[in-house]
């Protein structure tokens, strides 16, 4: 065995380990979510999907509040996407195109907002939201999610716009475009796949966010808040079904966007 073979064995070995570490829990959740409710308690578990059933998922989706919570979650996510793209994409564009005083500092501050744990912010936020009439309101939750997603959206869209050569926009400007129409006609269409990826990732951030959502709502629960709330009183199979339902959008997202994400983070 030469050094190269050892190297390869190590690399592939670690890759397989990492993959298993991520895949095995997902797989077990999937198995339990799609077996009959009582099969969850069977030991030893069959590791192959021999006896699939949608019964557990049906029970989960039909329990009180789940459908409403799903709708709430979707509404919150959509508002979050719209707000964070409207606020974040222009900031990202500015970071990518212009050198302005305090550009470095701005980039740092954008990241620094990530340093505040939501746990610390949530109580004052709850108080403020009660005063503003935003408490137990999906708009309030959306605002918090927007604040959480913004640093990500700004930095990713900056990367996306930096990937669209400035000379393309300048060429459009010499051909009769204003700065704004040059952006609309050239930069925007070319940045669209990247912006879509940022939007979908924002969706996942909002969809998965549980802490702010549970603190700031009472009856207008989003799905994670509801599941967290229901966790203690619900049977095991319900938890698996909920877990599967929660994790699905992220997996679908990664599946469709993986090549783009690799470009985004590995390529630049």
């Amino acid at each position: 065995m030469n050094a190269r073979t050892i190297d390869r064995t190590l690399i592939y070995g670690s890759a397989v380990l990492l993959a298993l570490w991520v895949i095995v829990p997902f797989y077990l959740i999937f198995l339990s979510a799609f077996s009959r409710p009582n099969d969850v308690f069977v030991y030893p578990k069959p590791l192959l999907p021999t006896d699939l059933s949608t019964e557990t998922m049906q029970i989960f989706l039909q329990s009180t509040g789940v459908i409403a919570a799903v709708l709430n979650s979707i509404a919150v996510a959509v508002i979050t996407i719209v707000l964070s793209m409207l606020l974040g994409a222009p900031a990202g564009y500015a970071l990518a195109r212009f050198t302005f005083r305090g550009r470095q500092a701005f980039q740092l501050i954008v990241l620094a907002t990530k340093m505040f744990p939501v746990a610390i912010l949530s109580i004052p936020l709850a108080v403020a939201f009660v005063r503003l009439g935003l408490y137990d309101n999906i708009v309030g939750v959306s605002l918090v999610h927007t604040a959480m997603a913004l640093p990500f959206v700004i930095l990713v869209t900056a990367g996306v716009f930096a990937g669209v050569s400035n000379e393309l926009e300048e060429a459009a400007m010499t051909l009769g475009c204003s700065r704004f129409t040059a952006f609309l006609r050239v930069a925007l269409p070319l940045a669209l796949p990247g912006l879509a990826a940022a939007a979908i990732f924002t969706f996942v951030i909002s969809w998965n966010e549980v802490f702010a959502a549970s603190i700031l709502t009472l009856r207008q629960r989003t799905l994670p808040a509801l599941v967290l709330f229901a966790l203690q009183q619900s049977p095991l199979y319900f938890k698996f079904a909920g877990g599967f339902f929660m994790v699905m959008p992220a997996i679908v997202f990664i599946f469709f966007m993986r090549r783009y994400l690799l470009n985004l983070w590995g390529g630049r």
Partner: protein
Amino acid sequence: MAGIRIENVTKMFGKQAALKDVSLEVKDGEFLVLLGPSGCGKSTLLRCIAGLEQVDGGGRVFIGDRDVTHLAPRAREIAMVFQSYAVFPHMTVAQNIGFGLRMHKRPKPEIEKRVKEGAALLSLEPFLDRYPSQLSGGQRQRVAVARALVMDAPVLLMDEPLSNLDALLRLQARADLKRLHREVRRTTVYVTHDQVEAMSMGDRIAVMRDGVIVQCEPPMRIYDHPASQFVGGFIGSPPMNFLGGTVKDGAFAGDGFSLPLGGRRIETGRQLVLGIRAEQIDFADQGLPAKVLVVEPLGSNALVTVMVGKTAVKVEAPVNTTVKPDEDVHLAFDLAHARWMDATSGNAVDA
């Protein structure tokens, strides 16, 4: 009909001056080349004409009789070819060429007609429905030129349009551009760092260095009468030879040689540099003593490097030259072809 007039243009990037009080006039229909090493400000000057950079201070830019100093690029009636070509990747060749016409809201039949003409001018007809990613570098470059030409703007600006092509293609594209210019006669400003391109294409060359135009004259005039040591060294391949020395007793004395000044009146003791082109030097029985270092046969001629004292001098000799390395030779040349420069400033001395 539009010439370009640039008056006292200064451009600062932070505390760095990219252009220092530059004035330049380009005649209507002229092909003017901005030539200089990277960082000399030639691209910045072009972008100031295009309106992609705003000039600082009181500088003014005129196109034709219009003061365009504060106009946006689209209002300046210019067309530009970029170094990266800047061909829009999400549009077909036809859409690329017609983009400017669409932005100017020309009627559809006219756009179609002019796109066809533009494509024909650059032999792009077979590729009209292709996307840029399906084209070679040379084809993309032609798309960029066609897109600029169909605008019928009186002024055409080109920023190193050939620098991304391989050597063979560049030769071809150079001739194509020159032919195009003869056909369309637009006022053209062409930026390059390649002195061969500048020599072969320009009606005039403006040589730039450190944000200043050091000489702006027709190519052969610049070649034969460089305004400074920098210009002589930048233009021509091989570059001009330079020999340093001092004026003493009516002669020019350098490292192991002395040349009569031939009636030129230059004060004794002045330090000068003699500039002479490689093709002006011959091997002779007497003259400047030198030692042959290398002989490089180049096909049409031989390039011989000799040492005059500690200075390397390039001599263009016939390809059948008999000189050999380490041989002691003598160099002869007509002083009428020599240029004298001041040793400290590097500027030509009119003696």
